[in-house]
């Protein structure tokens, strides 16, 4: 599998030609530096563009058209990668082999219509539709609380001052009222002009045809765009762990930790941290899982997650109420054990193999392939073979060295208190 990179002037086109799929995927990515005040706007834009266009002026007509195109799938999503926020519009549709002729061309044109021909009048999005979209975003903000795991992590991070990861990626209720159709349209224009744009195409495609369709339909002219350093500045090492605690009417308590990564080398950030995280709490074979769940039955789940470009690592666990002190002790002990090298060569080997498996199996899905190539652009990630070679090079000593650069910084506990009112 190879990727051809084509400079289209105002954007970059990446075509990955492969016969592994019966579908074609096109993923259009817009990115810029994350700004707290823009999060809600981007979420509205993500939703409103997929709602309707001038040609298909309501959601229903747009959906019916996508079903006629053999159920073309349309997904928009916002993600944050370090200091960048990324808005992706992705479509996936059947290869012409399985449809009537011209399905590819029609599908791409449909996608272009969604991006460049929005339902706009007098330089403003329709206020009625915007109101509907705002309701949807508001609902997502409000239902965050239904997922206690995400909610607890969100509360943990909220306590960190002014870092991209402390922002609420679900948006802000108070911002919703401030945004009208005109402002949102201006933001849309601004995004088309000033965001860095990368387009990925995966499938069995005719390169010339794709290039031609995009040239005719992808309308953006600005060539020079501001770049940002993706890496979030690291937090200072905490002298004492910052403790936050709330109680709620829940059956299971959520215990979360944030650890800082301080002074990582590029190699450690790209490779060693992955193996470290796998060992600590990456799977049901990890040190935390074994110590907290299997040996002590304190928790149903316990995981760790490295955010290498945020310079942090998260640990989160669903535990029996009242057990937080015991679990905290076990977590601290696990971190110290790795620092002291109380890990076996076998554990390191297993963790490395797991990471290598993940790198390989990513290539089985179009999204995984796109992520792999996008990482090469974003963080100058190496090709798959080199990455596997580098993971293989990691030794127990490398992990011990890295472990000493990881420090617990804060903890948040959502403690279950049973309220028997119902």
């Amino acid at each position, binding site marked *: 599998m190879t990727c051809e990179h084509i400079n289209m002037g105002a954007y970059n086109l990446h075509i990955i030609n*492969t*016969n*592994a*799929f*019966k*579908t074609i995927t096109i993923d259009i990515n817009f990115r810029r530096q994350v700004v707290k005040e823009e999060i809600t706007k981007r979420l509205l834009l993500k939703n409103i563009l997929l709602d309707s266009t001038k040609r298909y002026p*309501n*959601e*229903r007509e747009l*959906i*019916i058209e996508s*079903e*006629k195109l*053999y*159920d073309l799938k349309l997904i928009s999503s916002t993600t944050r990668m370090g200091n960048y926020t990324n808005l992706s519009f992705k479509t996936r549709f*059947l290869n012409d082999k*399985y449809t009537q002729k011209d399905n590819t061309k029609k599908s791409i044109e449909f996608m272009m219509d969604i991006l460049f021909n929005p339902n706009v009048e007098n330089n403003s999005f329709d206020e009625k539709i915007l109101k*509907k979209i705002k*309701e*949807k975003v*508001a*609902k997502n903000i409000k*239902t965050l*609380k*239904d*997922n*206690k795991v995400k909610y607890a992590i969100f509360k943990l991070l909220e306590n960190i001052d002014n870092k991209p990861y402390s922002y609420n990626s679900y948006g802000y209720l108070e911002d919703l009222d401030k945004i009208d159709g005109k402002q949102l349209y201006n933001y849309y224009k601004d995004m088309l002009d000033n965001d860095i744009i990368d387009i990925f195409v995966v499938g069995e495609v005719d390169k010339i045809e794709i290039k031609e369709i995009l040239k005719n339909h992808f309308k953006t002219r600005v060539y020079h765009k501001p770049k940002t350093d993706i890496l979030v500045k690291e937090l200072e090492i905490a002298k004492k762990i910052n403790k936050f605690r709330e109680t*709620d*009417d*829940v*059956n*299971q308590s959520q215990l979360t930790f944030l650890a800082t990564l301080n002074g990582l080398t590029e190699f450690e950030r790209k490779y060693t941290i992955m193996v470290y995280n796998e060992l600590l709490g990456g*799977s*049901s*074979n990890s040190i935390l899982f074994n110590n907290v769940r299997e040996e002590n*039955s304190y*928790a*149903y*789940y316990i995981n760790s997650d490295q955010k290498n470009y945020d310079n942090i690592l998260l640990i989160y666990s*669903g535990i*029996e109420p009242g057990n937080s002190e015991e679990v905290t002790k076990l977590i601290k002990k696990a971190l110290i054990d790795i620092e002291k090298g109380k890990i076996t060569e*076998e554990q390191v*080997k*297993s*963790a*490395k*193999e*797991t*990471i*290598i*498996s*993940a790198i*390989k*199996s990513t*290539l*089985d*899905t*179009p999204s995984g392939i796109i992520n792999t190539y996008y990482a090469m652009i974003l963080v100058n990630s190496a090709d798959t073979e080199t990455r596997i070679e580098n993971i293989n090079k990691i030794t127990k000593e490398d992990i011990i060295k890295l472990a000493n650069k990881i420090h617990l910084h804060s903890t948040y506990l959502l403690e279950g208190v049973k309220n028997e*009112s*119902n």
Partner: protein
Amino acid sequence: MKAINLAHINETIYYEKLDNGLDVYLYPKKTAYNNYVTFTTKFGSIYNEFSYQDKTIKTPLGIAHFLEHKVFAQKNREDPSQFFAKSGALSNAYTTFKNTTYLFSGPKNIIENTLYLLDFVQDPYFSDENIESEKGIITQEIHMCDDRPTDVLYEHIRSNTLHNNHFKDSIIGDVEDINSINKKLLETCYTTFYHPSNMFLVVAGNFDENQILEAIKNNQKSKKFAKEKKIEIKKVKEKNSVVKKEQIIKLNTNISKCAYNIKVNINTFDIDKRKLNIYMYIIFGILFDDSSLFDQEAKDKQLITNSMYINILNCDTHLIISLINETNKYKELFQMIENKLKNINITLEDLERKKKVLISNEIFSFENIEIVNEMIIDSIIFDNHIEQNIIDIIKKLNIEELNSIVSKIDFDNKNTVIIEAK
């Protein structure tokens, strides 16, 4: 080895029944990097009453799921998750109403790992101590589900709709059930339901079908099993009526979750079950999904922000068709649903469009070995065979048959469940 060729999709699945009764399905895919292998017993949460050595056994609820946890316990063998991790593979298991499935995924050592999967599932080690310690973990899992409003909603949909049908009970059981489980009960269930003749293996990934089948055969030949016995499951009679017409449950959530459920007796229809399911999916899709007029009107009236989630649960005797959403205005929404069901008008154009969607979904499934594997499991569990001509079946669906099904559904046989914010 028999080749099952799937018409219009250009895919082949291989099948063989081994001497000990084990069914083996192989789906080789040369472009895949990963492998996904599952080993399934036709034993799920609904099999609570069965005959064993001429006695009728009644087991505590949740025992299939408990057994799933304990099958991982080994005496003379390395811990499964450690074994699989050595080659970077991940192992897991899950329990549904009708089956328990053990699996691993990983790009390396497919034969060795497949044989290990057979070995560990076919030779677990139960002890009083390891059973006791599992009770704490499962209790945590139950608490985690209790904290998820949507899980609570689904539990009540079934328990308020079904009288005797075991689909009414939760898969995981409640804390009291779990505490009454002991070694003897587990052994009884294991001996009855984990015989090779009640199980099947599905291998999907990048491998040579002849070579792996040879290895599986040799592995099974080297083991001794009891004589194959017919398993007698106690048949339950299920009334057509629902149990409770309405229930409002107060929970810790921001936005209410609501479900409108229709109970349909499968024997009302003189039609193949699979076809019936497809028709139901089409009928309720056309009436309520994001391409429906209903959706547009409900959103315009600001009753809902997201489209209805349509869930069709096949409970052997009946179907439960649930229309689910999140809204505080559920009364108005239910009224709208009721009105819609009184005045059903489905056009040929609607049907033809949905056929395109269904065909597309079938082809999309073959993008991913994991989905293919799951599709094979579902086919065996629900239909006991793999349909070779699914595309032709879809193409032949017609409006007369559809309308005849609509006319036979008793739409008044329904109930509602609401999870309301405290």
